[in-house]
């Protein structure tokens, strides 16, 4: 159990700057997710915390102690890799107990700890097997077991679910979450998948281009994205965004007036954002249905308004067919306005 503090972290590879002064406080027992597109610097940040990457500038502290100059093994952390990184020549049990063996723990203690972790992860029948004899999900579990056995101050996850198929990913997501609720160990979790971030995190740091765009609870990010990047990154299907001009308490765009609750200067060019689920059917903006994607519980429509494609999601089934003309009422309370130049929320 520990806090993790990043203080103005810089990093460059050659002449390319990958992190521009990241500061981030992670609370004791918190599940922090770093999310962002590939190349945003999230993995580098995690690897610096793990001691696998030199820290270019700034300090990293675990439990109040600066770890910049500590070797990985002295930082009391455990890490789960995307490729699992299980030792192929060791059994599941040996893999899980390896860190304790390196510490010269007693045999009996190692066995107990491994058995304990195996019980938590339902790995008991597999302890004598080799990684090559396991399925992807089981390997993932062993990788987690290896982390649990050590009872570290901080768990690090580097895209741990990326190599699993979609169904397994959902199951493992829930398992990791449950594990965290049981162990309450501070966790830093890196992913490029915003759904993973939303479902698992206590707090999310959305990263882009070596900076944190926004830090907050999942629904905060969803409800009040600080800027265009976060708005478009978080939420699925993605938010509709288009250019417009603020006039008389609404936005003129795509040949229609779009209601909003935020305020801007009269005549100010803005970006208008609205999520696909925040439309009602009824009087409002005229649209032409282009594609209908029924998914059972909900239906997504791709519609054209003033030459622009927008996505609309409705609960249940939709009677609409391609070519139909419908009328959409954007929900003003859920509309977002962003400054056209800076992309910042208004």
């Amino acid at each position, binding site marked *: 159990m520990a806090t993790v503090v990043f203080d103005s972290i810089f990093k460059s590879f050659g002449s390319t700057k990958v992190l521009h002064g990241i500061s981030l406080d992670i609370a004791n027992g918190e599940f922090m997710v770093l999310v962002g597109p590939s190349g945003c610097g999230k993995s580098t940040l995690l690897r610096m915390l793990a001691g696998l990457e030199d820290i270019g500038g700034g300090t990293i502290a675990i439990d109040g102690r600066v770890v910049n100059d500590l070797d*990985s093994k002295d930082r009391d952390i455990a890490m789960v890799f*995307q*490729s699992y*990184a299980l*030792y192929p020549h060791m059994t599941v049990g040996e893999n899980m107990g*390896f860190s304790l063996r*390196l510490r010269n723990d007693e045999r009996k203690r190692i066995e107990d700890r491994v058995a304990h972790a195996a019980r938590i992860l339902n790995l008991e029948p597999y302890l004598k097997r080799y990684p090559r004899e396991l399925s992807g999900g089981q390997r993932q579990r062993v990788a987690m077991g290896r982390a649990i056995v*050590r009872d570290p101050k901080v768990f690090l996850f580097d895209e741990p679910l990326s190599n699993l198929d979609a169904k397994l990913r959902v199951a493992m997501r829930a398992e990791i979450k449950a594990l965290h609720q049981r162990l309450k160990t501070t966790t830093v979790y890196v992913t490029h998948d915003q759904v993973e971030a939303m479902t698992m995190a206590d707090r999310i740091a959305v990263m882009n281009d070596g900076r944190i765009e926004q830090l907050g609870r999942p629904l905060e990010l969803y409800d009040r994205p600080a800027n265009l990047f976060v708005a478009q990154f978080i939420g699925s299907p993605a938010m509709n965004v288009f250019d417009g001009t603020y006039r008389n308490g609404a936005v003129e765009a795509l040949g229609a007036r779009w209601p909003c609750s935020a305020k801007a200067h009269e005549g100010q060019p803005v970006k208008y954002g609205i999520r696909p689920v925040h439309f009602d059917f009824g009087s409002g903006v005229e649209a032409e249905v282009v594609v209908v994607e029924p998914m059972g519980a909900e239906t997504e429509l791709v519609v054209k308004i003033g030459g622009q494609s927008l996505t609309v999601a409705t609960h249940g089934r939709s009677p609409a067919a391609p070519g139909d003309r419908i009328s959409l009422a954007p929900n003003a309370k859920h509309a977002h306005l962003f400054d056209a130049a800076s992309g910042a929320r208004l």
Partner: protein
Amino acid sequence: MTNRKLLSEAKLWLVAIPVLLWTLIPIYHIFLFSISTKDSAFSGRLWPDHPTLHNFVTVFKQEHFYLHHFWNQIWNSLWIAVAAGAITLAIATCAAFSISRLKAKGGRTVMNAALFTYFIPAAFLAVPMYKAMGTYGLLNNRWSLVLAMVTLAAPYAIWVLKQASDKLPWELDEAARIDGATPLQLFRLVYLPLMVPSLVAIFTYALLLTWNEYLYAFLLLSHENTIPLAVGLGHFLASDDSPWEILMATALIYGLPPAAIYYAFRRYMVGGLTAGAVKS
């Protein structure tokens, strides 16, 4: 259709038969001599009238002038080959681990130096090496041949082992570091177990290279107590009326173990050795 098939099959045999003869005649010739009596050896027949193992008995009992030190020489060959194989393996494994996994400073330069040594024709390096061994006072000491063969075998060994190491996932090292492994623990507990097939191939390579070596052996060792069997065999050429049938029996004893080892480890050898060479 079957006619065409027959024709293409016949074409294959037309290649196969000359290849088989070309390959086997010199080897069969050794075998033939080794089981012939002196009289029938020179009769030019394809199979002796009275095949005999007498030549081998002569060799094993060291009953010929050229063979007085046979057992001593075969022991030297074995000792030198095993020593060179083991030392090459140790040095090359450490170097490959250092260059590939620890990313040691100057690793690339060392790799280039090794490759340079690998490409220099061995017969050319023999001249300065001979002089240097003299300076070091190692001439006629079995260690001179061991060290010379380590010098010749290590570059290729490092190259092959580095290629194999580079294929190991990098995350394994990182996982081990986070698990708390020191560099030596990483080497011993993770790296070595995973490299076993390549290590077997490299040990075999260095062993065979040394056992088979003639030039360095006869340059560096000349005292009859230190020479390996290869040099002992060369001594048969000292006179014109050499006992060929006994020479061939000895040659067979000398030549078969490496061939057998090669075939036993062929799976490792061919994979490891061509991988290094073919990469294109």
